[in-house]
């Protein structure tokens, strides 16, 4: 996959008269030593100047590191090497910058969510619990999320799958090109716009009340393009020889697709569907417009307002008391766990049922 380039490191001078090709370079331990030195200096300066934030200490150390590296390298080596080293450290800094928010988010959610997360929280609804009071649970929201997501998958997965089959196996000409392009564009539809669309058709035109099913319709719009994209990639990986062999035996094309092509790619397809499910499970905006929220347990997604995990988090956040914040964090932890488990299972399936190309 990736290919790390080897640094062309100048060889140490052997003769007494070094040429431009064989001038000395910084020793291998130099970056580590400079890092240690600048960390020390950064901490020292920070402590002496009385800066409270550890972030500032880190920033000073990082700046010192870049500065010292540049000077040392341009003295011992040359300007080009110095620039290279600075670029290397900048790329490292970029990567660390991305990891910091992820770790912070996970850390904060776990630390604050674990406070009220227990069996009671998972098995009770918010019935009779005032927003600012402690107690209550997330059962109704969890139930709602699972039902809505299953319904959305039941709608979006077959349509997405068939569209991908069309694009790979049948699609020719203008229609296929248009479908490809608009599937791509559709991936970028904001979730709130999908919600508004179902609102105009389902709620305003057909005059249906809020229900979990209305939310599922909006979620399925968000899910379809993702399923099409991933299934398409997987179907393209199926070797043509398999199709040809099946067709040569006189099997009709539709049976070839159903019995040969789809089973070969089933691992990748289910991975794609599960990743799409993980994506829509966290959508709040369409649920807010269409499902409305309900503190009671409503296990019928076709009638009456329901709740869902993301919506529950939003409601608890809006209440604005310490107890409701605790519940919001705990629900966020449940939601993240739900999404991450889906992610891990999806990747597990992908590994377990990797495309059987060699047969």
């Amino acid at each position: 996959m990736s290919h790390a380039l080897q640094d062309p490191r100048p060889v140490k001078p052997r003769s007494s008269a070094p040429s431009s090709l064989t001038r000395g370079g910084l020793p291998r331990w130099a970056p580590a030593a400079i890092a240690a030195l600048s960390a020390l200096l950064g901490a020292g300066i920070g402590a002496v100047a009385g800066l409270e934030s550890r972030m500032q200490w880190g920033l000073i150390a990082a700046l010192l590191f870049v500065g010292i590296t540049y000077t040392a390298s341009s003295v011992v080596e040359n300007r080009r090497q110095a620039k290279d080293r600075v670029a290397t450290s900048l790329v490292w800094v970029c990567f660390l910058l991305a990891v910091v928010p992820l770790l912070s988010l996970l850390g904060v959610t776990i630390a604050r969510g674990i406070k009220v997360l227990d069996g009671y929280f998972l098995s009770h609804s918010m019935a009779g619990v005032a927003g600012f009071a402690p107690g209550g649970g997330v059962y109704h929201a969890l139930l709602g999320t699972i039902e809505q997501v299953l319904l959305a998958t039941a709608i979006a997965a077959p349509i997405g799958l068939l569209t991908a089959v069309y694009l790979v196996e049948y699609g020719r000409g203008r229609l296929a090109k248009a479908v490809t392009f608009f599937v791509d564009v559709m991936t970028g539809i904001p979730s709130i716009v999908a919600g508004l669309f179902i609102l105009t058709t389902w709620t305003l035109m057909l005059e249906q009340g809020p229900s979990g099913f209305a939310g599922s319709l909006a979620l399925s719009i968000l899910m379809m393009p993702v399923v099409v994209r991933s299934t398409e990639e997987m179907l393209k990986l199926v070797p043509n020889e398999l199709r040809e062999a099946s067709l040569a035996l006189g099997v009709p094309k539709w049976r070839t697709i159903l019995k040969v092509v789809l089973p070969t790619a089933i691992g990748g397809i289910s991975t794609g569907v599960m990743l799409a499910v993980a994506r829509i499970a966290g959508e709040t905006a369409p649920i807010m417009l269409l499902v409305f929220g309900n503190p009671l347990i409503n296990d019928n997604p076709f009638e009456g307002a329901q709740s869902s995990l993301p919506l529950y988090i939003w409601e608890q956040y809006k209440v604005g008391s310490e107890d409701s914040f605790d519940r919001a964090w705990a629900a966020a932890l449940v939601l993240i766990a739900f999404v991450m488990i889906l992610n891990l299972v999806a990747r597990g399936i992908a590994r377990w049922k990797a495309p059987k190309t060699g047969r």
Partner: protein
Amino acid sequence: MASTTPTQMDTAPPVVSGARSTGRAGDKIFSGLSKGSGILLLTIMASIAVFLTYRATLALSENEGNFLTTFDWNATGNPPVFGIAVLLYGTVVSSIIAMVIAVPIAVGIALFISHYAPRKLAGPLAYVVDLLAAVPSIVYGIWGALFLVPYLGGLTSWLNQYLSFTYIFDKTQVGVDRSLFTVGILLAIMILPIVTSVSREVFLQVPRMNEEAALALGATRWEVIRMSVLPFGRSGVISASMLGLGRALGETMAVATVLSPSFLISGHLLDPGGGTFAQNIAAKFDEANEFGRDALIASGLVLFLLTLLVNGAARMIIARRKEYSGANA
């Protein structure tokens, strides 16, 4: 770039093109079904545009203010007065802040994964960045509102102290940092994964020959990147940024939790206030009557067209890129 000729198109798809339908009923039904779902997708896209436009016209015909220039959103009032000026400004400004922060960092991460990280670590590291994309936006929202906002106090007062002469970093109101600037930072974190993964794919496609040629001429690693990787990947990075921009424009919950909305346009980015399309819909929906909903749908239509434009442009650039690199492969 080079456009593909018809003959290339015919040989490219991995399909047995000679397989004619034998007229069996199963074949007809199945191909009809799959074609039908393709058409259904197109129909959904078209009907989104049609239905939103229809409801929007209902609202716009009653609007007493100017839809484009009014600094107010009072759609439930009598007479109704609403306009998208503030929302358009807030959406564009917060997205631009997000892009300015996210794109350089994302390019750095993509370079790190494709060219700097130890080979064995590259896969897991890419996975960690993808995990950022798996976190639901509402979780980013409460993290931003309850954790990031208090922590940014130091940074914003520092910016205000030393950079207030730039006008945009001049903080004129005392208060918590529920500003467009904070929203921009949060959006930057949220669009990092998509910009990173698309850029990474492009950087990995750079022909080895180009890199090795540069190395053979004695270039350092940075010079290889600057002379062969970045020029090759430029259009890919542009389209990746536009995909990220599309995400940032339509983000709802993270903005709704962090921003304290107001209907003012202010050049002072650190002051709380402003609004975005999606945030306004989320905030005003509960109290809206049917006419108020139509007004919100009108603003949603503008958002839809905006993201359609940005995403469409990004996909066009990527499609051109594909043909180009395919011809060189």
